[in-house]
């Protein structure tokens, strides 16, 4: 009996242990040969050998664990969906966790072996040969960097696995991240420090300072510890979600409790990102953080939080739909459970506000003025109303989409595109046209259509301008429409439930 049959079979499908050993030997021969060649070319001077060799090793480690590894995992999942073997796993008594661990380890066994080989060889070089580096600090940083790399790889791999299992292997998150990065996606990092923290960029910035030649940013070393902790917590959440998904593919990606935990952790990470950004005093990221306005970072953080909140909102709407349908079909569906799902928009509103004030609190002294403005009764009321209505509209939109069998992520994207982002696009177009005609000044806060979007209301509150009540009234009208549409969809569920004569059980 095997400990993890899926691990065994994935290793076999990747070529088996013999191929694994062969790759390790070839890889070691390659890097030792490279080191020897560099040493000879530099007339026996060990310093350039050390730095060049460690550079090559680090780059290959990053490639193995952050690119090739997740790509292999996704490929294995895709193959199992295409061949139908994922259903074979579902039929077997293997637990969802066993399947997840099999996917996380089996397809990457060769890459992990190569990483381990590089770690051993690299460790030897760092401790015995790397004379060009500042002895104590560099060695500690190198090993610290390995831990950061491993937790980042785990975080990234679990995320890719979750995406692959949820999309039948079609979602290529590795490719998406590469494309986003290539097209300037790095620009988001100064806007949302929490993402920089979670993505390991802050840690990288800190660790780099140890090798940079200047004064190391020792005071910010705990950034790496926070990043590692956050990545481990997220990885755990993703593993639980994937295990649940493997066993119950038609249920929401995250269960309600798990979605709630994900959201709480996201809130903490976003607040920690704002708090820790001040700890970065050196490196390119520190300069970028300083260049961004406070309210922009708060707004971007809240936007990120609201995107993640969609996960819980979608789950709540799907659960509500399932409970409503179960009730119609005569199955157990407590009314309290249904009402609780419908109250999710209010919970999310409270959580979003909590995160906003949490970020402002750690942003002192810069955030204090914004917090005072936001805490004014009318401003606060407008923000609460805008957030609650926004979540309520999304909740109903997802419910209606589920009732009519539509693609939920597409429905949600449509909701965000039309109701939240389109007003900004319309404003931009108007401004572009008007500036061409009479050079009319434009301000994001006083935009023409932007106040109709909940994001517009939020921006106006954050920059301390007067509440645009007309925009809020339009948002209320939209929310009222979706309340009506949601109820109509709920009533329409009964149309599909027909009764057929009960067939007597077989004798």
């Amino acid at each position, binding site marked *: 009996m095997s400990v993890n049959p899926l691990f065994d079979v994935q290793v076999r499908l990747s070529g088996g242990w013999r191929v694994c050993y062969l790759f390790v030997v070839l890889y070691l021969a390659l890097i030792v040969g490279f080191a020897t060649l560099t040493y000879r070319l530099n007339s026996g001077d060990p310093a350039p050998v050390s730095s060049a060799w460690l550079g090559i090793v680090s780059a290959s480690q990053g490639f193995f664990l952050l690119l090739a590894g997740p790509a292999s995992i996704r490929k294995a999942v895709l193959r199992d969906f295409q061949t139908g073997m994922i259903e074979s796993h*579902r039929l077997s008594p293997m637990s969802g966790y066993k399947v997840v661990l099999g996917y996380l380890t089996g397809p990457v066994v060769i890459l992990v072996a190569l990483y381990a080989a590089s770690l051993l060889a690299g460790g030897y070089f760092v401790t015995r040969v790397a004379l060009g580096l500042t002895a104590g600090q560099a060695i500690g940083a190198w090993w610290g960097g390995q831990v950061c790399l491993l937790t980042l790889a785990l975080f990234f791999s679990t995320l890719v696995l979750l995406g692959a299992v949820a999309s039948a292997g079609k979602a290529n998150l590795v490719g998406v991240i590469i494309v986003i990065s290539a097209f300037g996606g790095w620009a988001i990092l100064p806007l949302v420090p929490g993402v920089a923290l979670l993505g390991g960029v802050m840690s990288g910035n800190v660790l780099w300072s140890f090798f940079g030649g200047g004064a190391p940013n020792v005071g910010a070393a705990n950034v790496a510890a926070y990043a590692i902790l956050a990545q481990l917590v997220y990885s755990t959440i993703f593993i639980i979600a994937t295990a649940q998904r493997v066993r119950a593919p038609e249920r929401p990606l995250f269960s309600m409790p798990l979605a709630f935990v994900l959201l709480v952790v996201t809130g903490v990470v976003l607040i920690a990102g704002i708090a820790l950004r001040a700890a970065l005093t050196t490196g390119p990221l520190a300069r970028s953080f300083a260049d961004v306005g406070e309210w922009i970072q708060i707004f971007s953080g809240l936007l990120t939080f609201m995107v993640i909140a969609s996960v819980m909102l979608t789950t709540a709407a799907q659960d509500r739909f399932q409970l409503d*349908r179960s009730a119609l079909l005569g199955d157990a569906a407590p009314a309290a459970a249904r009402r609780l799902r419908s109250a999710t928009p209010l919970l999310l509103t409270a959580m979003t506000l909590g995160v906003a004030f949490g970020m402002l609190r750690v942003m002192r002294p810069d955030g204090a003025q914004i917090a005072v403005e936001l805490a004014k009764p009318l401003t606060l009321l407008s923000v609460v109303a805008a957030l609650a209505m926004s979540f309520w509209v999304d909740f109903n939109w997802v419910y209606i989409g589920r009732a009519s069998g539509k693609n939920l992520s597409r429905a949600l994207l449509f909701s965000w595109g039309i109701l939240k982002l389109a007003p900004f696009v319309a404003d931009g177009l108007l401004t572009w046209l008007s500036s061409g005609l009479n050079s009319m000044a434009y301000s994001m806060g006083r935009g023409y259509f932007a106040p109709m979007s909940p994001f517009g209301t939020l921006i106006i509150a954050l920059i301390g301008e007067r509440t645009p009540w007309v925009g809020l009234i339009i948002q209320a009208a939209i929310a009222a429409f979706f309340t009506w549409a949601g109820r109509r969809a709920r009533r329409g569920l009964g149309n599909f439930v027909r009764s057929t004569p009960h067939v007597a059980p*077989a004798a």
Partner: protein
Amino acid sequence: MPETLLSIRNLTVQYGRFLAVDALSFDLAAGSLLGMIGPNGAGKTTTLRAAAGLLAPSGGTVHVMGYDVGRHATAVGNHLGFAPDSPAVYESLTVQEFLRFIGDAYGMPRRLVAERIDMWLEQLWLTDKRGARVSSLSRGMRQRLTVARTLIPDPHVILLDEPAAGLDPAGRMYFRKLLAGLRDQGKAIIVSSHILADLAEYCTHILIMERGRVRRFGTVAQVTDDAGHERCLYRVQLAEPIGDAAARIAHLSGLTRLALSGDRLDFEYLSDRRAAAQLLRGMLDAGLPVAAFHALAPNLEEAYLRTGIGQVD
């Protein structure tokens, strides 16, 4: 072991606005072999997938050996085997490696896995393909491998979706015996198939579905004799061809659909045994050299057509 191995109650599956299965309920006891019939889109595969736990039902419940399929998926995995219509296999493994993986996935001891692999490879004519890569197998062989994969864990409830598709005539014949053997071992089996003649031979129960609803359900005799049809087809083998054989017995009351083909005479008559004995006497009185006389097995195709579904795949 509970007598009812599979229990389906008010099973309803909706795909958006489309109702694929509509409040389906039945029980399956040990030793039952249920044949599912229906046109494409009737909901057969959806029912099987929901029963296997691969599809979350919109409503209703499925219990296997008393375990709720939706809530105790891993426990159900130990008792249920499902063979989908398209074989799910790892192409680059050998037949033996693939089956060993399945045994491991079910937590079976290696020795038992080896014994079961030997047994099923032999029973499914795949012994000489033990070391062959799955990618080199023909469609029929893959189908048999999928059946082996399903049976290796020795499940109590077996669901087979179009298992005979892709099998040659000899394979089909052998497969019928295999299913009858499993039935006699006390398994509860559901077979979805369009080959109605085969189903009539080995099934104990028949379920005819259309648009997610049950049109007929019961034992084979109940389904074929449904709606007061107390008649069946008879076949008479004459010792030699008699040109006017049909005319000689045409006067016998109750005979319909009389057809003469060489030395073979087919007709429909009352299925009652006393009536059959009188009929035989009548034929002998008419001077027909009757060499063999027997009622044909219940005709499932006719029963299916009588439901008025029309489309026969």
